[in-house]
């Protein structure tokens, strides 16, 4: 996994609550193996007409087509567990999404792929989106180590993140590497557990 440390980049404002993962990656693209083609899949049915011509969508417009940060409204990434939604964001170039709240599964999927989900208050997100709407192409700085977002006016917003998620993102660690250290404990656990609930293993 590519680490996330500090990023200064163009941010795109999304003034819409409950953006679900069906929007990020329409279901018919779920069968596409991960690759650069996912860049076009992001928000596909919002960005492209049925005949494939681009629609008027923020991510189709300069300078937002170069955005690496999205500032969203509440419950970003709700719905389906599809990780292809993260592949679409990542391949488009998005490395960080800032929102008042996230769909749980999507936030996990982001973090497992080196895309930083940042939670700021609804008020802070609204203020930053307003700045970005007023100054298209303005950049934000997201510093994971310091746990801060510096907005267009230079105001610093501190965010909370679980220490393990922070460490994994900063160092690009994947879970398997962490889990491997516990191999013996896993075996010990399973042995005791199987003795306690033997009925779980008698497949017909």
């Amino acid at each position, binding site marked *: 996994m590519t680490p996330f440390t500090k990023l200064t980049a163009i941010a795109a404002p999304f003034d819409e609550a409950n953006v679900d993962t069906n929007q990020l990656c329409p279901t018919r693209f*779920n069968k596409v193996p*991960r690759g650069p083609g996912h860049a076009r899949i992001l928000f596909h049915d919002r960005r492209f007409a*049925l005949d494939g011509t681009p629609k008027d969508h923020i991510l189709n417009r300069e300078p937002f087509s170069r955005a690496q940060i999205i500032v969203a409204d509440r419950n970003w990434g709700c719905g*389906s567990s599809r990780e292809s939604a993260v592949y679409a964001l990542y391949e488009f170039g998005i490395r960080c999404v800032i929102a008042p709240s996230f769909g749980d599964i999507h936030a996990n999927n982001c973090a497992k792929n080196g895309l930083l989900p940042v939670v700021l208050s609804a008020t802070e997100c609204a203020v930053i989106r307003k700045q970005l709407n007023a100054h298209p192409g303005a950049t934000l700085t997201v510093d994971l180590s310091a746990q801060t977002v510096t907005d267009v006016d230079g105001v610093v917003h501190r965010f909370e993140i*679980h220490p393990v998620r922070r460490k994994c993102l900063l160092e690009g660690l994947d*879970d398997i590497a962490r889990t491997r250290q516990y191999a013996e404990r*896993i075996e010990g656990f399973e042995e005791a557990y199987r003795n306690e609930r033997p009925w*779980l293993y008698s497949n017909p």
Partner: protein
Amino acid sequence: MTASTMFEKIWRRHVIAEEEGEVLLHVDRALIHEGSSHAFEKLDSQQRTVARPKQVFAFNDHYVPTTGRDKGVDGIAIPEIRNMVLKLAANTAKHGVTLFGIDDPRQGILHIVPPEQGITQPGLVICGADSHTSTHGAFGCLAFGIGASEMMHVMATQTIWQRASKTMRVTVNGTLGFGVTPKDLILAIIAKIGAGGGTGHVIEYAGPVIRAMSMEGRMTVCNMSIEAGARAGMVAPDATTFQYMEGRPYAPKGAAWNEALAFWKTVPSDTEARFDREVTLEGADIAPMVTWGTSPEHAAPITGMAPDPERELDSTKRAELAAALEYQRLKPGMALSEISIDRVFIGSCTNSRIEDLRAAAEVARRGRARVPAWIVPGSRAVQRQAEQEGLDRIFRDAGFEWRDPGCSLCTAINGDQLKPGERCASTSNRNFRGRQGTNSHTHLVSPPMAAAAALTGRLTDVRKLLK
């Protein structure tokens, strides 16, 4: 010892290790489907194997066709779709994972088959490659959906790293009214707490309405917990649960049954257990529900009206309502019972169990479908039972189409989909933009409400037809 919730009890017994508040949990069962191809690709690219193949179960459901199934996989005309079904067979064979395949007499949706087979049991941790894995919580287990990276980890280690959720109890008092179903209840709950209202929480559903509910109904309620943003939904196991489970293929037998039963009875929350949040509803206040917009929280009683954004004081909310109405091509303030529909879908992991089909048939036999209306049973077992009960005849006689089991028009990737502009009364779980096909429109309803919409060609208060 302090009183514990059901969630806390299950959680504690599955902890293997802890790092700064994140724990490594043992996973009893993992559920996968064709879409888990991404997880297998990751597994293969890292040259890993499935650690506990007997604890992983695979299902052909998302990509299987719902007609022409006598030809098996060869009957799938579109190569990319056929390939998804073939890939799951190849991956599960390679890794020794049990597959409920396209030709299996037990085939069905991954949230319908495990309960039927007794794979879903109280006290377990179940991870599924699908957000509606919350369904299984109806048996008093902790069941939640995960993405491909986490599923790869589960398959490689039979464990998952998790942080404890907060707990929420939703208590439903009294009884549900005439014509009101578990689907209406969960839509009412989501309308009340919001599509993000359960974020960070595991919801336990409790109270007289839940206790009186069948397992099928409890599964419908738990299924849509994710539509309220919750990590999982749960119902305490009781006599209804144990009666449902007894004799199922994977359920314990004989002495093992008694041993298991003694354990299952310890699973429910202690009387004195404290929840981080409590929500209460009165069953009698709930009417048959429909969604008008593009989020499951956009739900209202069928007797109500689409919202008028002009009357919304909050500007963000006003813009959201206006955008949803515009996408759905509805007039602000119009009566919901005036919405005409083009199609009806009765199926999905939310509402394709035998009780759902019985309730829909009870309405269907009173008239004739005016629009194309599909019945897609959740599994071969449901389909067989319905046919034994003659429900297929009732549906066919009323002009409904009786199809084969799968996810079908809920997730709309097996070839079943709405045409652009079509509007569907659907018993599925998501009314997101384009969910049932590009530029399509979805109204979520219960099975009897869907059947009523089929008979009238518009969203209809089913209570008027049942009188």
